[in-house]
């Protein structure tokens, strides 16, 4: 036999089938949309995030300090007010002073791939015209495992660059402008003097700025052209386990002193946009469920009003107030549970449907929206729905339990 309050709750719901069905539908729609839309939004963010992670280094060690070095005097007297004037920045030659030591240490860390770079401007000359480009000196074989350059190669390869000390890999746009192809030579003017480079590869990222303005050369060649022998100004790191980025960056920074920025820091603006986006979507979806809660409040209120006499009878028989509250709470939870379950089914199919919609601005043909279908979404949406249902039922239930049964018994006899 069912517990008494459940039995009576069911009899009440049965007496208001149509209204109960509408409330169930309200909850189901709320839960369904919650699951599908939050899944879609987070799917988009997830897609974007992996793109970011894939196309950017996970950690960048650069030749900067997070805080300017203390002046010797500043450390001397802790709370003293100092007025130091005419401070000239030290370090005219920028770069990671102890790059070889850092790289040796990185070599020993499992799951860490790195690529050192030295950036600097070059002036390429071809057919009497000059093209100012930003050149990255790279270690080609290391670069292979630490960035996306391999993926973006159109012609030639990083191996070709490794094999040719004076090789250069240029962007597709630049190649088009200069009318240069594999094997062509380019005259170069740089800080360290003149040189000649031979095109060994062409890459295409789809980003105009890179394809027209970026070239890759060997690190040693770049060091020579820039007149900065053995200098490196960035070490880009990729991790086997992306979740280690922040602790790893902190460790590297405290160990070597140079600024080590995890990708979360470099992309903090877009990530904070995601946070705002999530706040908006989740609060909107919760508001939809709150509206569904009104439906439950409505039906329970009606039943409480309608059954005032029955409640008075039960109280007079000796059912305590909590039993009455339970009876109506259970009704709300029944509507909420059925609605939540129906909403989970609905949300699942909505999500599956959305996942078949072609993605706007797709970079590959046949690409569709990424929609996350995850267990916790169902649990969260269902949980919020049940909480709201319980609350929406509890308000009228408490009213039912508080009214003095004698008011009704006196009035009727």
């Amino acid at each position, binding site marked *: *036999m069912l517990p*008494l309050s459940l*039995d*009576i709750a069911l*009899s*009440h719901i*049965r*007496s208001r089938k149509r209204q109960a069905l509408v409330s169930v539908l309200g909850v189901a729609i709320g839960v369904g949309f919650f699951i599908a839309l939050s899944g879609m939004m987070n799917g988009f963010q997830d897609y974007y995030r992996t793109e970011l992670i894939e196309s950017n280094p996970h950690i960048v060690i650069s030749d900067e300090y997070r805080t300017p070095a203390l002046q010797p005097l500043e450390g001397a007297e802790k709370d003293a007010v100092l007025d130091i004037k005419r401070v000239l920045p030290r370090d005219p030659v920028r770069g990671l002073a102890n790059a070889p030591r850092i790289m040796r240490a990185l070599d020993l860390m499992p799951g860490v791939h790195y690529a050192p770079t030295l950036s600097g401007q070059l002036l390429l000359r071809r057919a009497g015209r000059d093209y100012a480009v930003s050149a990255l000196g790279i270690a080609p074989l290391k670069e292979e495992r630490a960035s996306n350059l391999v993926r973006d190669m159109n012609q030639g390869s990083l191996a070709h660059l490794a094999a040719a000390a004076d090789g250069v890999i240029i962007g597709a746009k630049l190649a088009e402008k200069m009318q240069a192809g594999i094997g062509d030579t380019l005259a170069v003017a740089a800080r360290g003097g003149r040189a000649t480079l031979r095109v060994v590869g062409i890459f295409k990222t789809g980003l105009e700025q890179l394809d027209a303005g970026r070239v890759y050369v060997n690190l040693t060649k770049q060091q020579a052209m820039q007149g900065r022998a053995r200098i490196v100004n960035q070490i880009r790191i990729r991790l086997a386990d992306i979740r280690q980025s922040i602790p790893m960056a902190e460790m590297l920074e405290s160990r070597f002193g140079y600024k080590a920025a995890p990708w979360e820091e470099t992309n903090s603006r877009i990530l904070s946009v995601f946070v705002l986006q999530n706040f908006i979507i989740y609060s909107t979806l919760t508001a939809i469920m709150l509206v569904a809660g009104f439906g439950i409040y409505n039906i329970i209120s009606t039943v409480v009003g309608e059954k005032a*006499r*029955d409640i008075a*009878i*039960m*109280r*007079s*028989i*000796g*059912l*305590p*107030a*909590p*039993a009455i509250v339970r009876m109506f709470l259970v009704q709300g939870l029944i509507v909420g549970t059925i609605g939540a379950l129906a909403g989970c089914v609905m949300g699942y199919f909505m999500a599956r449907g959305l996942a078949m919609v072609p993605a706007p601005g797709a970079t590959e043909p046949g690409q569709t929206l990424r929609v996350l279908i995850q267990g916790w979404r169902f649990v969260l949406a269902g949980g919020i729905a049940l909480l709201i249902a319980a609350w929406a039922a509890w308000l009228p239930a408490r009213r039912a339990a508080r009214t003095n*049964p*004698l008011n009704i*018994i*006196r009035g*009727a*006899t």
Partner: protein
Amino acid sequence: MSVLATRNLTRHLHDGEVEFTLVEDVSVSFAEGEFAVITGPSGSGKSSLLYLLGLLDVPTSGDVLLDGESTARLPEDARAALRLRHFGFVFQFHFLLPELTVLDNVMLPMRQLARLDEAAMRSAARGVLAGLGMEDQARKLPSQLSGGQRQRVAVARALANQPRFILADEPTGSLDSRNSAAVFAMLQDLSRRGHTVIVVTHDADFAVRAGRRIKLVDGRQKPEVRIQKSEI
């Protein structure tokens, strides 16, 4: 030995500035197995007294003693538990739950008390219904019964937990004379079996046949008298 008694029982009701007197300084006591009626003109406070006796209402002052124990200061949940265990109410209107069958209505107090298992409850409820000649109606809904039948179901429900006290407020008020007589006989029978029965009634025959009559006027108790037919 009195099992249920009142001591200077007073109940006032406030409606804004105005104060109504429902019951004023009533001290009565009931013995086990007694059959008592409460009579009085309309508005004299009979129902109010019955609610106080049945721990449905809380006195403004004075007390209701159950087995000599004070109940006036008990919290509502404790009073509810005592009602469930010791009191059966029959109101003027049948007051059955319309969605539940006759059997389920009778089982309602048993299920709340939860002293028996389901099978035992069922057979006990059937037994009570059979005692009232209602065994064939067990599966019906209240709306499928006549007024007299409903009232008998209400009595059956009042008896469900074998309460020591049966409190009835004009239980025959909506019945014809034949049904009234049947319900009255039933209540009398219960008192013979050891239940203490207290009935509010306007019915002269009832009053005469009861063992004892308590008369109220304006919420006050009149001296108890030997019952004679001419008085009512």
